[in-house]
């Protein structure tokens, strides 16, 4: 069977055209915006500085990272470095860079705060670094609010106040909907926490769906039924399918959009000067006004044959000046402590962008403890999947909320039982 495993691994490798020569470092990379181009520039510069190391940047769709990379990793293959978002659940596959980077203390000092997000519980490994820190949050179409004569709700406005205000804009400007939230369990977990929810049980396993999560689920369903929330994003898909609502916001079809900081660059590019928009942070629930932190990480893969070269590439990409340049050109929030402490000159003429980035930085101070714990919790994606699957069924009229609550708990329990089965 070990031979079979190796054979399948080899087949997976060849199918993905990812066979690397000795000295080659292959990076699996996906892009939300311009970061693929920026990374290519940086990689080219690295190769000029290190002529003996050939770095191959494979730009792939996000779906490939989500669906194919885990299979490759299970087969003991894959690229040498990958940009991933499912960082905790796959943590067993990351390479410990400690013996391969020039100065582990530098890595601990500048990226150490997020290491627990990307390594198994109890580990002291250096698995990589966050290419960006993200925070969920809202965006308002200021031009539409102005045209409707509706003032933007203030800093500590609640979800209800935002929906009410956006609803007035919807009625005045004849919009399809007032608000939209990406179809994602991750996205609604920030408001769930703001309404007092805590997914993590005392034994670190998923706890039952609590009153906080139920409170926000009721609001979501009501807003959808009332026509305030864009029905098409959540209802027109089954299962855990991700559907972003960015196009509705870009096309001025909604007044308020809840997504996250990673959309800033895309909003700037797609909206241009068509209308003014502002980042609002996260609306408040009954206990907090929290966003959900997270992000994408660049990690070494432990099956690499070129660990020393991987260490050199990671050292280069994790350098303070390189992280600063990457941050300034991609308009991402950095994870590097030195970069955060210094001056960041975001490369944009768009006034909306600079203000939005400042708002998101300010919103990081409001992150609730329960939200801050989720990126380092391995069962997060199980919870998110059950939430999005069942709540969208309620929105489609397939079951009442009470049944959905039961199903969410059953789904999570079944997934945990299945995943913890051991020989």
């Amino acid at each position, binding site marked *: 069977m070990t031979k079979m495993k190796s054979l399948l691994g080899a087949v997976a490798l060849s199918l993905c055209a990812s066979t690397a020569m000795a000295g080659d470092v292959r990076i699996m990379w996906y892009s939300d915006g311009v970061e693929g181009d920026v990374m290519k520039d940086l990689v080219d510069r690295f190769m000029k500085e290190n002529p003996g190391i050939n770095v191959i940047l494979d730009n792939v769709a996000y779906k490939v990272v989500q669906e194919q990379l885990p*299979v490759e990793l299970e087969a003991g293959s894959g690229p040498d470095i990958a940009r991933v978002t499912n960082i905790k659940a796959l943590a067993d596959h990351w390479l410990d860079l400690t013996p391969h980077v020039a100065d582990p203390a530098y890595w601990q000092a500048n990226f150490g705060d997020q290491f627990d997000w990307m390594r198994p519980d109890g580990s002291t490994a250096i698995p990589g670094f966050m290419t960006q820190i993200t925070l969920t949050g809202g965006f308002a179409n200021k031009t539409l609010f102005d045209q409707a004569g509706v003032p933007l709700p203030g800093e500590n406005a609640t979800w209800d106040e935002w929906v009410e205000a956006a609803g007035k804009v919807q009625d005045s400007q004849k919009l*399809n909907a007032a608000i939209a939230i990406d179809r994602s369990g991750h996205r609604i977990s920030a408001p769930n926490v703001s309404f007092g929810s805590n997914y993590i049980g005392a034994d670190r396993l998923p706890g039952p769906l609590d009153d906080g999560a139920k409170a926000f689920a009721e609001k979501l369903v009501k807003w959808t039924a009332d026509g305030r929330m864009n029905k*098409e994003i959540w209802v*027109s*898909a*089954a299962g855990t*399918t991700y559907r972003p609502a960015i196009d509705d916001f870009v096309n001025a079809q909604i007044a308020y959009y809840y997504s996250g900081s990673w959309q800033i660059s895309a909003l700037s590019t797609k909206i241009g000067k068509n209308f003014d928009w502002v980042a609002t942070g996260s609306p408040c629930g009954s206990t907090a006004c929290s966003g959900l932190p997270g992000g994408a990480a660049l990690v070494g893969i432990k099956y690499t044959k070129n660990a020393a070269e991987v260490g050199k590439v990671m050292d280069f990409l994790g350098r303070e000046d390189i992280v600063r340049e990457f941050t300034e050109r991609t308009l991402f929030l950095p994870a590097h402590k030195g970069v955060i402490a210094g001056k960041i000159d975001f490369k944009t003429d768009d006034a909306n962008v600079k203000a939005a980035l400042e708002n998101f930085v300010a919103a990081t101070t409001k992150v609730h403890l329960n939200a801050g714990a989720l990126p380092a919790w391995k069962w997060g994606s199980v919870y998110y999947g059950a939430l999005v699957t069942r709540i969208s069924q309620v929105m489609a*009229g397939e079951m009442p909320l009470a049944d959905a609550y039961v199903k969410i708990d059953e789904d999570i329990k079944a997934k945990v039982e299945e995943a913890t*089965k051991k020989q």
Partner: protein
Amino acid sequence: MANALTTLNEKAGAMIMAPVRLLAMAFDPPLRVWQKWTGQNGMAAFFLAPNLAVFGIFVLFPLFINFAYSMTGGAALFLEDRVYVGADQYQRLFTCASYLDPKGCAEDLFWTAVWNTGLFVVLQVALMTIVALITALVLNRDLRARSFWRAVFFFPVLLSPVVVGLIWRWILQRQGLLNYGMIEMGFEPISWLAERNWAFTAAILVSVWAHVGFYALILLAGLQAIPRDLYEAAEMDGTRPARMFWRITLPLLAPNLLVVLVLTLIRAVQIFDEVYVLTGGGPGTSTLFITQYIYEVGFASLLRNPGLASAASILMGGVLVVLTLIQLGIARRNEMRSGKG
């Protein structure tokens, strides 16, 4: 000139055939020995062996592996790392208060997908066969630019299912082409993909649009094989066109219709790609079909369950085997009736 061309042609043919002849000469003695030992059946087995090997490697072996997976649990990818659970996955799929009400089932999404697929198969197969037949009948007439019209109906078959799904998504989404046209004409826009019945109807119509050209082509071939003199004789007897259709066309087209029916049926049970792109299985779960359920459980969710997905795909494979056996049975019965069997 013609003689020179013929000679050249013969020489080229001889050059091409030379290696084939060499191969035949090399294989001739051992094949004769093989035939002597094993008789005619042995020779048949020899010639079938390459095809059977391909079938075994790419169909039977994966089927066997799939069955083995369906008897295991856990999230590990490789069989050696997985836990043997016997028939637990099948038991989970069949744990239901009532099979008629998916909500009471442990795997309610599986049974929702089963019922959705059943309804889709009934409606889509009927519609596909009727539309393909009508299309073939029309294209078989002496139309002006007949080849052009044949190409028009066949063109969607050449498109990738993903392209088909995307095209129709752009047409049917809320800000899509269809609603734009409706608004221009003074109608209220409709959320085609967010309303259960509309989305299900759209899934059927889009799949018919995408594949009808292929089935129409099969029926067209059948229509052209019907001897013209039968129609001429019927015309001389004063038979009405409708009667000619029921008494001549339909009976003689029956073998082709059977092929179309079975192929459509199998394809409808397997429906996934274009509908997945078009509706994502929504609204809610109203266009969630079995293949998408298997894909979601086995691949798409972040915590995969290959055992459950394998059990569901084995059950789906069982249904397809039954459908194929029915087809073979009917085809054999038809051959017997027509005296060929």
